[in-house]
């Protein structure tokens, strides 16, 4: 991990995420809670390393937001940080904290993912701002990201409202030049204030606050008219473009000479400013990724505007998309050459590979979840058959098992990762015990939040800021929830894994199997002494059993002929890349021809 190099450097190349963390630190934000999720993860990681701040990974986004609300109630400036789908999880407290406001300041960072680079859906979280009646700022690059987190905090204090800061993958993960400032948060802000009428949202109080929310939004709408980050950049009057966030950069890149209304705040919109801008240009466009969020509101003002008629609803934009849309160009995208795709894959030595290989042999229907293991749906493992959202594997396995009754006996398995189980798996597992389920749940426990880049969680024994802490015991928890059959396996032992799965599928009632094998990235010490396996090409019969593991280190070499040792014909043989092999031994275990050999004898 690189140290935070800030001293004596006036400007730095920073990602949007790093810039948000820096801006928060400079502005006296002392508290942040979040759950890892691409593209938001690095905000918490970078923030947690600044001096004098408190930062935590919460078990999920709902808890993170509630924790941040508590901190804001205690008077400090607090952030809750999550990816777009995380806001769905946090939506319950979100809609009501909009009523209560806070004592300090509260900003919710939502990192959206147009093009679903690393997500299960492409939702446009600007809709949450409107839905929950919360103002939303949207930066276009790293310098703005750093500035806007400060503006968002100020806005939160000024109007006693939570504020959204929305990024997209392209803003979060692009790097651009940022001017570094000195911290100037100022003073101890902590306090306890008793204001039940404001914070106890029973109907009588909530009805009063409901009115206050409308009043606040009306004031914010007025304020938006003078907000300096809503700005007109007048150029040629032939074409005017209303835009926000990264789309602004794409448009400026191809059409630097047109007129722009660049919105720093996307909710609520400055209606008078939009009317003025529209009156100054001949042709008006809204350039926005995903939903026609601004466009529909502009149209509702009675203004003629072009948007989704020429720009796509789906996927992220680039400068080319805007050029094609505005110039009504007919040229399609040049099709790239037809070459083999390169999807992400389970790493060589990944413990999940053993689990899904064994699971495949059971022919069970596997409800899956969110994590690296989701990648096992691809050929050749094809090891899981659903992926909806965090925690869904368990509820779905239970629902299928209940609906199928005797037809589903021994055929329904749910697989969920350790961090995902903690995030959203505990209540559905309790439900399985309570409602007498018959499915098998596997906790694929690789001791980390691997998909997002190795974050700690309540079962790793370490906090985000590196403190040692309590370590959740999955087996004890499952027992306490009412699951009587709980087994622990090492998934790189194929024989044992297969037999335990068979036994648990045959049993009546719910079972939990904890498949425990540390992520390969946690094994750096072991990897230093790895002795790769090799293929004895005289013995390999070309049966391709080892290829069924889908290990990136094993490849197929076509070479028709006779196998020297068996004298039988084969079409080719397997080969192991010794720079990739990490000696997990799965291929050694599946090989029936004794052709895969440990280096230097058995290990």
């Amino acid at each position: 991990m690189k140290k935070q190099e800030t001293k004596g450097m006036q400007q730095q190349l920073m990602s949007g995420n790093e810039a948000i963390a820096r801006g928060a630190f400079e502005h006296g934000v002392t508290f942040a809670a979040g759950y890892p999720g691409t593209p938001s993860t690095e905000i918490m990681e970078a923030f947690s390393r600044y001096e004098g701040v408190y930062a935590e990974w919460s078990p999920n986004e709902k808890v993170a937001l509630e924790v941040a609300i508590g901190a804001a109630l205690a008077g400090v400036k607090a952030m809750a940080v999550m990816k777009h789908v995380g806001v769905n999880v946090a939506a319950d407290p979100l809609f009501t904290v909009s009523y209560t406001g806070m004592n300090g300041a509260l900003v919710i960072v939502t990192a959206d993912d147009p093009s679903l680079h690393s997500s299960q859906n492409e939702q446009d979280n600007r809709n949450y701002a409107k839905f929950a009646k919360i103002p939303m700022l949207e930066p276009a690059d790293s310098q703005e990201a750093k500035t806007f987190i400060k503006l968002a905090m100020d806005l939160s204090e000024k109007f006693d409202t939570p504020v959204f800061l929305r990024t997209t993958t392209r803003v979060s993960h692009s790097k651009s030049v940022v001017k570094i400032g000195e911290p100037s948060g100022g003073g101890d802000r902590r306090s306890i204030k008793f204001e039940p009428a404001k914070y106890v949202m029973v109907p009588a109080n909530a009805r009063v606050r409901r009115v206050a929310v409308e009043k606040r939004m009306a004031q914010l709408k007025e304020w938006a008219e003078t907000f300096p980050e809503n700005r007109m950049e007048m150029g040629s009057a032939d074409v005017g473009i209303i835009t926000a966030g990264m789309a602004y950069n794409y448009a400026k890149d191809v059409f630097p000479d047109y007129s722009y209304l660049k919105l720093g705040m996307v909710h609520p919109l400055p209606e008078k400013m939009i009317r003025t801008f529209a009156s100054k240009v001949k042709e008006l466009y809204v350039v926005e990724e995903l939903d026609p969020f601004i466009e529909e509101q502009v149209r509702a003002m009675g203004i003629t505007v072009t948007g989704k008629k020429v720009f796509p609803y789906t996927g992220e934009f680039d400068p080319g998309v805007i050029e094609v849309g505005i110039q009504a160009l007919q040229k399609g995208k040049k099709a790239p050459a037809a070459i083999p795709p390169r999807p992400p894959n389970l790493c060589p030595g990944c413990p999940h590979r053993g689990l899904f290989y064994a699971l495949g042999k059971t022919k069970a229907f596997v409800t899956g979840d969110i994590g690296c293991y989701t990648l096992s749906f691809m050929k050749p493992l094809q090891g899981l058959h659903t992926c909806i959202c965090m925690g869904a594997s368990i509820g779905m396995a239970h629902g299928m098992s209940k609906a199928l009754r005797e037809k589903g006996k021994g055929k329904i398995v749910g697989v969920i990762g350790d961090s995902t189980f903690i995030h959203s798996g505990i209540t559905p597992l309790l439900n399985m015990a309570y409602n007498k389920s018959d499915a098998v749940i596997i906790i694929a426990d690789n001791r980390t939040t691997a998909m997002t880049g190795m974050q700690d969680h309540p079962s790793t024994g370490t906090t985000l800021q590196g403190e040692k802490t309590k370590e959740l015991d999955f087996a004890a928890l499952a027992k306490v929830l009412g699951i009587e059959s709980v087994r622990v396996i090492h998934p790189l032992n194929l024989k044992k894994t297969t037999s335990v799965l068979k036994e648990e599928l045959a049993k009546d009632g719910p079972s939990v199997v904890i498949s425990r094998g540390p992520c390969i990235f946690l094994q750096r010490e072991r990897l230093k002494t790895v002795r790769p396996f090799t293929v004895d090409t005289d013995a390999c019969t070309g049966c391709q059993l080892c290829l069924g593991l889908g290990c990136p280190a094993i490849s197929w070499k076509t070479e028709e002929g006779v196998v020297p040792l068996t004298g039988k014909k084969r079409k080719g043989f397997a080969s192991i890349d010794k720079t990739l092999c990490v000696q997990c031994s799965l291929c050694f275990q599946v090989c029936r021809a004794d052709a895969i050999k440990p280096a230097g004898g058995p290990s």
Partner: protein
Amino acid sequence: MKEPVTSLLLAGVGGQGVLLASDIIGKVMMRAGLDVKKSEVHGMAQRGGCVTSHVRYGRKIYSPIAKEGDVDILVAFEKLETLRYLNFLKAGGKVLINEEEIYPPSVNLGDAAYPVDAAEVVRRQFKDVLVIHAPALARKAGNARAVSTVMLGALSRYLPEVSPDDWKNVIAEEFSEKLVPANLKAFDLGRETT
């Protein structure tokens, strides 16, 4: 008025050091007083998928990514990846290819063939193509993992805005102390390749 912009596209496979290489280019150009933006998509990069990084610099940069047909130099850290992103290159653009082959899953399984003639396919469309065997040069430099630094060395010859020392200063900062000598050597070996 459009300001002149130089667009680079680095493409490779997770684990090859594409992102670190693009960070280094970004810092070198920023130190040279230019505006820089760079963009990549990561999150699933460690798991062997494609990794790309756009780097754009000039007096004023808006978009961190180039549109198709607008990239000046494509730096392919893996041979097959050259073909995947060739459509981003502008007419007359330059191509640097690391001659390393890393098989994607479908090739490993025998379902697809690896396009071994990638460099020839590129040469049919673009004149200025440099093929480097970066792993061999990295090993020669004393660190087999310094492939990305070899590629930076080769790229540096095409970027006259900055001197070798500008590169080396940043390289020395970005790597831990014991890796610096091999990476500086790797840079030189890459730069000497013609």
